[in-house]
């Protein structure tokens, strides 16, 4: 092999630099540009974040969970997202997604779950006694989980019904009518979208 400087330039350096330049334009700019144009044309709602409005006001994204505290709304899962500077926990910070990363034998995990169970029971005195649904006391992977399990929604029915002066049966039926099943009945898990359910609750009183 003749590794003269000239052949090195001609055979390796020029193709490497030119191909880097041209593929950067193709893959880094043209490709995402074309996808963006088509996405905005064909699926504008989804491409811009599945944003939901109520009475003409932007109230959130269907896909991004929110931090609910009022007893008259269904609550989502615990969230371990941090503030933007990472200094403290700021639940459902959709600018800084993330999980707790607490290991299975971490003391902090065990204590935190214990506290959450106690708090959940205090907030829901009329809920059935006994163990609570796992997803209501564990932090999600994204910290932005928009969904809860059916069990987690049903668990909160007595509290929400009481806070809104509705019958438990009415609220229960509303929950069941908002269950999203598995894809093709097979893939994923049945779940309830919390924002969807809460918007339906608000619509109920009108």
């Amino acid at each position, binding site marked *: 092999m003749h590794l003269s400087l000239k052949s090195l330039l001609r055979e390796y350096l020029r193709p490497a630099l030119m191909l880097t330049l041209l593929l950067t334009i193709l893959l880094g700019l043209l490709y995402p540009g074309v996808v963006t144009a088509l996405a905005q044309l064909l699926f504008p709602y989804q491409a811009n974040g599945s944003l939901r409005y109520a009475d003409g006001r932007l109230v959130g994204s269907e896909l991004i969970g929110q931090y609910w505290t009022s007893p008259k709304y269904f609550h989502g899962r615990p969230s371990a997202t941090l503030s933007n500077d990472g200094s403290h926990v700021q639940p459902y910070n959709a600018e800084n997604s993330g999980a707790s990363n*607490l290991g299975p034998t971490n003391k902090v995990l065990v204590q935190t779950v214990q506290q959450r169970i106690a708090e959940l029971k205090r907030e829901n005195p009329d809920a059935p006694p006994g163990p609570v649904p*796992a997803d209501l006391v*564990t932090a999600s992977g994204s910290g932005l989980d928009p969904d809860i399990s059916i069990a987690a929604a049903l668990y909160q029915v007595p509290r929400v019904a009481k806070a809104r002066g509705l019958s438990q049966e009415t609220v229960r039926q509303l929950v069941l009518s908002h269950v999203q099943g598995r894809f093709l009945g097979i893939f994923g898990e049945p779940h309830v979208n919390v924002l969807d359910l809460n918007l339906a609750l608000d619509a109920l009183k009108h």
Partner: protein
Amino acid sequence: MFITFNSFVQIALFLALVLALTKPLGLYMTRVFNGERTWLSPVFAPLERFLYRACGIDPAREQRWTGYVIAMLVFNLAGMLLLYGLERTQQWLPLNPQHLGPVEPQLAFNTAASFTTNTNWQNYAGEQTMSYLTQMVGLAYHNFISAATGMALAVALVRGLARHSAEHLGNFWVDLTRATLYILLPICLVGALVLVSQGVVQNFNPYTVVHTLDGGLQVIAQGPVASQEIIKELGTNGGGFFNANSAHPYENPTALTNLIEMLAIISIGAAMFYMFGRMVGDTRQGWALWAAAAILFVLGLAVALPAEQGGNPLLAHLGDNQQASALQPGGNMEGKEVRFGITDSVLFTVTTTATSCGAVNSFLDSYTPLGGLVPLANIALGEVIFGGVGSGLYGMLMFAILTVFIAGLMVGRTPEYLGKKIERKEVMMAALALLISPATVLGFAAVASVLPQGLASLTTNTGPHGLSEILYLYTSSNGNNGSAFAGLAGNTPFYNWTGALAMLIGRFAFLIPILAFGGSLVGKRVVPAGPGTFPTTGPLFVSLLVGVILIVGALTYFPAYALGPIVEHLLMLAGRTF
């Protein structure tokens, strides 16, 4: 039993889909790399010719293994420098609506090494660190070309096996260009739009400000996500647009997107096994490797799925209902999303670590000890369970060589593979390739677990889980996977430098012996199979291959794992916390 009926059905259907995709995709890739016309040629052939002309590439001129390696290295170096430059100057460049500042030098270097080597380890949160321009031009670009590089090298090695009495392994520029234009780009164009239809965002908007019903304020990160999401999976890259990766609802909103992303991760790797069989003229050779991979894939699931569905015994005592039922997924839900539950989370995790992808839809640091051991071991075995695009095939072929060598030792014959005698030089190269990884991983992990700079990063978890975190970091970096036990604070000078080094060694110090191996084989004559030839297609070979992979992996890593995940499992059962 901790596996639900639905789990069985989901897994069986997923494997059936992978099987169904293997042959058609493998046939198509064979045509692409043989330089034949495909049904996409009318669209992409003019572009392909333009690229060759503009870059001064003669597509008909093939390279020896040395030329192939130099081209690969020079090209990857150029891309790595470009990415580093972009990260450092993004504050002055367009498409930065959040006015993010420059990426710190060490972090920028770690990230440049990470994306060049197809690792996509991330010591940063994407939505807090990278401008839209850096994501697209810097990171997504590397997602394409690191994948195409891997595919090109695998094809070169296969040519080394398929050709005889020859000198050349192909032309790197042509293989790279064709992999990009005919395989990656078209699938991404379609796949990205399907993802958008399900809710993956694709815009250049500033982050959305929302006043919630409950009186709160929420700022929601946006971006050109779908175009990057699909190549992140298809190229087995794994670097998330957002910090939460594929757990983020804007990256992976539904069970359908989850299924598409898993298929994207594994399909090219699986199809490359078929392509290999096709190129060497005996598809059974490819199916034998495929079968070995499928067995190992199912083994991993059989350990991880019951562990996760069984939940965490320390939490069960507290009154946390982890029973699966029609109303809830149950199990160990810390770090997992409700829409995926246990089955789709574990299936994704096994898929992403069987290959070299590293995207995650659930957070591995919070897995049960045995549930977390499976992804760790999958990567440590060399990501040969279908594997990364390209890297899976060349890794699996090294194990196949080792298997015929061991079988040859047992009967006292010179081993041969595909009619080529495997002699001292080839076995040395294969052994070298297979030894570099454990030496790097265990060496760095040993240093990190005694140095204060290494231990200082154990800010979230300690005890045996801390050792698991350190082992995972180097295993994932060296294996170019990129998934993490993310509780370890990796963005420190110590981990940025050593992690980047592990990634570069894992990629390039592995590739060079492999191409040297290909270069040595391509010149050999083919010896006709005789009565003493060990057949490399039947169940005997497949079982032996699976055995060799597991034994090499177990002998190498078991002592370290015994002190990490295994002891943690036993202590968890005994009720200990740290």
